[in-house]
């Protein structure tokens, strides 16, 4: 039996054993309300039992119920997603959403009409990422997402952060979106004051603190005004490496002129041919209150450093030094 024959036989067996649910799908698709959230109709199976169970709970006594309710309504972790819309989900120890809060106006648009309360955090995150994609907040011009988890138990928080980051990555890969996901564990108490002062989320404040620890040339104030995609690009510069933040994927530079174009502008300004250039290094960075390409190279006996406005291609600053 060849590999091909073996595969065909196996395929035939799976096809023969696959149940036919088309009628059910067709009957339900018009009523499938909650577009990105699965499992809603699952409760139908249990509707009758739920009524009986609810009656039993009442009879069982308010004492036990009160205790369980207290534990289930206690916030165990806060998960925040920030693209430009900034959303905060408070969840209990069973990872069920207790509260979904819009932290800025864009987030209100995302959350409008979504019933996240009571869903598990994985389903809720799935729904939110779907909504962010649908509303065009993750696209080729800005593809970075900041995922932050606050938890009194740092081990649990780390694990949750890792799982959610993988799930978001899977959703975006499935939607054929090349996104950059930054994920971090945040101690909310440490960043609470500064986040209030600059009116930004705990997650963004913690990310900025990490960048400042790596590179003290920036100020908190200027970084607080940047988008998550811009911060993600800053982190991609080797001189700003931040170990506490895990990054997957690459932040897009498509809103900018690109490194190649920046190089050409610098060479033209310096009046030299590309063929005479050696030791070329180009990195995207934030300098002179703007996103710039930092282009360094040598030609002949001269070392050059150019800062090119990443948006407009304008030469912002340059230095020229004769090698000794």
């Amino acid at each position, binding site marked *: 039996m060849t590999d091909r024959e073996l595969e065909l036989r196996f395929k035939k067996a*799976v096809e023969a054993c696959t149940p036919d*649910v088309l009628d*059910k799908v067709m009957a339900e698709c018009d009523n499938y309300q909650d577009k990105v959230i699965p499992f809603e109709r699952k409760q139908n199976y249990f509707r009758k039992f739920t009524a009986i169970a609810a009656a039993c709970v009442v009879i069982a006594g308010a004492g036990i119920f009160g205790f369980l309710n207290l534990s289930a309504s206690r916030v165990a972790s806060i998960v925040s997603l920030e693209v430009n819309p900034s959303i905060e989900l408070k969840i209990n120890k069973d990872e069920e959403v207790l509260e979904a809060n819009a932290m800025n106006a864009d987030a209100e648009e995302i959350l409008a009409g979504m019933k996240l309360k009571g869903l598990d955090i994985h389903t809720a995150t799935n729904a939110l990422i779907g909504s962010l*994609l649908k509303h065009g907040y993750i696209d080729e011009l800005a593809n970075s997402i900041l995922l932050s988890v606050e938890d009194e138990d740092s081990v649990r928080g780390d694990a949750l952060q890792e799982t959610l980051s993988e799930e978001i990555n899977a959703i975006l890969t*499935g939607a054929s979106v090349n996104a950059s996901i930054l994920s971090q564990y945040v101690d909310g108490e440490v960043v609470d004051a500064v986040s209030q002062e600059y009116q930004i989320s705990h997650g963004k404040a913690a990310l900025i603190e990490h960048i400042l620890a790596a590179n003290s040339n920036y100020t908190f104030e200027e970084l607080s005004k940047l988008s998550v995609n811009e911060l993600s690009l800053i982190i991609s510069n080797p001189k700003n490496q931040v170990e506490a933040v895990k990054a997957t994927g690459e932040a897009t530079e498509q809103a900018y002129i690109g490194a190649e174009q920046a190089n050409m502008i610098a060479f033209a300004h310096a009046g030299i041919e590309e063929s005479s250039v050696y030791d070329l290094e180009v990195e995207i960075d934030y300098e002179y209150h703007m996103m710039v390409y930092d282009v360094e190279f040598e030609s002949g006996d001269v070392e050059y450093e150019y800062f090119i406005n990443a948006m407009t291609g304008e030469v912002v600053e340059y230095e020229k030094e004769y090698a000794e």
Partner: protein
Amino acid sequence: MIFLALLQTTQIAYNAGSHLDALMSRLAVGDKDALAELYHETRAAVYGFSLSITKNPADSEDVLQETYLKIWANAERYTAKGTPMSWILTIAKNLSLMKLREKKRHQDLEPEEWDMSFHIPDTAGNTEDRHLLEAALNILTDEERHIILLHAVSGLKHREIAELLDMALATVLSKYHRALKKLRKYIEGVEAND
């Protein structure tokens, strides 16, 4: 390396991506006939892949249903950059993993129940088909099972499987060959006994 993988996969790719793409475009504008067509072309791939994750026919039947409802509701969000099959299987994978997580949370199975050997209901397929599928689910490791199902039933390329399962291409290839070897040994054993 890439050429080698392409040579091995092009022979068995069974579903023209452009046809599924066309179905997706029709779905995006609410064409129910397109949903039925897509269902017939991909249901075995969805069910098989889900089964390889949940190892539970009832759960995978739920996943099968949920997957097409989700495809219906989210078709407009699908972008033509990836293949429709990868997108559909990512949905099936996420729903299957959610099933597993739900189970872990709501059912405290005794440890000895975890590795229960797998059984397909007698109502499905003929005896030979059922036994082959049961064998695949019982004698292959989780990864081997995912890979063989994705390749044989879904027609996914090894490279696409590597992306979907987040594995290296070389690992996918070696596990695929090991899985085929195990299945061949099983079938030859059954035939020798007949």
